[in-house]
């Protein structure tokens, strides 16, 4: 009744192909942005901002990165955490060598380092596909993690083998380090995530995205249509690793504030792969859904018993959370194997014809 396109006429191609073709969608995205930019920082407390929102955005960004590679180009990667680690360590090295340069610049620059590493490990993708490529990227994951542990130069010969984030400011206000307020950190992360999501959205809706999808759907056909496979696949690796690298730098600098190489273990790669699969392969909004379901849901479940006044032991809650999240993942995959994004699409379709379904 309310969500319908009747009366909204498209008079040119651009309008017809817009990312948000319906007015209601535009209003919806405006409301979400207003919520994220104004309401959440005003209403949310420090816990909500630094434990729920910042990690959620970081994971969403990493999921977008992996989604560009796995969902849009069809190249399965298990090296996500390794690429995130490259971003984090590159940012750490850059900001300790050139402390006077703005940290935001270095966060982007670290993405470039990650992209270069990603391209290198993406080279085999021309020859191998599917599970075999997954194994090749797995090698990247283990090799990179080995580097983080074994090359002391990367962590400045720190005895503990960890990187500690120094205080850096933006317009005189600390954004990293212990003195940075959650609001400031949230705004920086949010700004970067919005910007990069917007860029990703433009990429996948344009020529590059189409060539990625053509390669995903059938690479021989794509090649016959004139798409050069190697540059296309390598570009996908580069862009994907760039996003992961930025996410990794954000993770260590604006969320943890210090990290051991163990943070970038294979488990992290799997976590992000699950987010992509459950959110929906080949969908940007799905990356956000996936990150929300896998990261935020356990936090809500952990907080739920004490909120309603039940006194359950912390370990029991943890076990219950594991079981509930696991069961939910299975349920979602049975109900909608194409992920939450497809569920969202179906919901929108249903809403269009409501209350008179045909």
């Amino acid at each position: 009744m309310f969500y319908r396109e009747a009366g909204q006429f498209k008079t040119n191609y651009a309008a017809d192909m817009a990312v948000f073709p319906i007015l209601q969608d535009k209003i919806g995205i405006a409301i979400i942005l207003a919520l994220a930019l104004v309401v959440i920082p005003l209403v949310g407390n420090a816990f909500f901002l630094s434990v729920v929102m910042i990690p959620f955005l970081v994971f969403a960004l990493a999921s977008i990165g992996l989604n560009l590679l796995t969902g849009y180009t069809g190249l399965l990667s298990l090296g996500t955490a390794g690429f995130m680690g490259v971003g984090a360590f590159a940012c750490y090295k850059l900001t300790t060598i050139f402390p006077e340069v703005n940290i935001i610049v270095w966060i982007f620059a670290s993405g470039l380092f990650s992209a270069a590493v990603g391209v290198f490990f993406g080279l085999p993708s021309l020859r191998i596909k599917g599970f075999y490529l997954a194994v090749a990227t797995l090698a990247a994951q283990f090799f990179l993690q080995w580097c983080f542990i074994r090359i002391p130069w990367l962590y400045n010969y720190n005895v503990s083998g960890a990187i500690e984030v120094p205080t850096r400011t933006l317009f005189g206000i600390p954004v990293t380090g212990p003195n940075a307020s959650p609001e400031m950190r949230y705004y920086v992360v949010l700004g970067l995530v919005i910007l990069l999501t917007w860029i990703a959205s433009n990429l996948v809706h344009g020529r590059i995205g189409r060539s990625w999808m053509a390669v995903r759907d059938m690479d021989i056909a794509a090649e016959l249509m004139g798409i050069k496979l190697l540059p296309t696949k390598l570009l996908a690796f580069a862009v994907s690793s760039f996003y992961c690298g930025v996410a990794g730098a954000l993770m260590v600098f604006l969320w943890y504030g210090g990290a051991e190489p163990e943070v970038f273990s294979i488990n992290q790669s799997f976590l992000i792969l699950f987010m992509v699969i459950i959110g929906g392969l080949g969908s940007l909004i799905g990356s956000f859904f996936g990150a929300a379901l896998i990261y935020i849901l356990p936090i809500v479940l952990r907080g739920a018993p004490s909120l309603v006044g039940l006194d359950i032991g912390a370990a029991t809650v943890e076990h219950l959370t594991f079981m509930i999240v696991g069961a939910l993942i299975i349920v979602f995959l049975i109900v909608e194997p194409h992920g939450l994004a497809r569920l969202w699409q179906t919901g929108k379709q249903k809403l269009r014809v409501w209350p008179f379904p045909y």
Partner: protein
Amino acid sequence: MVRKLSTILATAIVASAFALPAKAQDSIYVPLFTYRTGPFSGSGIPIANGMRDYLTMLNERDGGIGGAKLILEECETGYDTKKGVECYEAVKGKNPVMINPWSTGITLPLIPRAAVDKIPILSMAYGLSASADGETFPWIFNPPNTYWDGLSMIIKYIGEQEGGLDKLKGKKIGYIYLDAGFGREPLPLFDQLARDLGFELKLYPVPADSMQNQSSQWLSVRRDRPDYMVLYGWGALNPTAVKEAAKINYPMEKFISIWWPGDDDMRSAGPGGKGFKTLNWHAVGTDFPALQDIQKLVVDKGLSQAPKNSVGEVLYNRGVYNSMLIAEGIRNAQKLTGKTVVTGEDVRRGLETLNIDEARLKELGLEGFAGPIKLTCTDHNGHRPAFMQQWDGEKWVKISEPIEPMADRVKPLLEAAARDYAEKSTGWPKRTEPCDKQS
């Protein structure tokens, strides 16, 4: 159904709203970061039980500390940095008097925050060794000894076995360790000792993701045949190492570990583990009034999650020791400030002036449980001696007198590391906290 649920919810909210004022008597909030789930729970559960039970016992027996009841809350970290940071943010707002992260990975991101949030961190014999330097790290405490102290004690012990440190010349010592910050930390000292004493050092790193598969490392051990093996492991690494050592018939009495292997580790390693040695700085067993109080007032009453026979195991008692430090820190803070309800800032001062001597240990019902310990503004560690204990197949048996660490070798390393940390983190705050007189 929905109505029913919302009624339950409403009642619960109203009930909790009424329940709150009842708690408003004097109380101190002590969060405990524990891990009873995940791959490290084998080590985490006994520690969690020991920590919780000692503090519960204080609540039951004395009504808390100095008239203030302790509110204990466990936060499950699963030994995962993400969840640990989440736990920290969750408890930060509730005025915790101190944080015990129980994971080096969680300790590191919290170190810079401690001074900002005014919450002291007690990382008992783990975490950043350099944080023993109170001048650089006024908010971090890591008594009673560091991993460097531990290594120097092990080498000293080996020297004793051989009849003097000079006899180590030409010997081969193997070092099997978790290839992470914790296991790599002793390396600089180990290298230096190898050079100075003339023994050969063989390294066998075990990556964190293949802790349970050490066959390749032990194959090398078999080839190299080191005279002694030193182990720095945690979680599943320990029982696996002992099992593998037994498999290649490595003489167990020459296999010496830092203080982390527990009873469960040894039991799961099987009969081949007999003779294995570890460092330790506190007693095992329940032959102490305080531990008997725990059994009587906590375990027998069903207030503990610990199985009855696990009380007195080495990691359980380590949890008890940790909680003894927590309790003494709080008590000391009360004494210093004259307040009943102390804050994190007060407890920082309390820990800094901690002085648990023999008499005090006796008062606590822990006479002979552990050596005395004294912290100062500059020394947040104490560098206490530890003794060697040996697994006899069923329990740990103390086999040596306390061994003093080599202070002359550890101290310069510590100071350099602390200076280094402060230099690298630009804008690391200078200490502004005044130093209290010893109480």
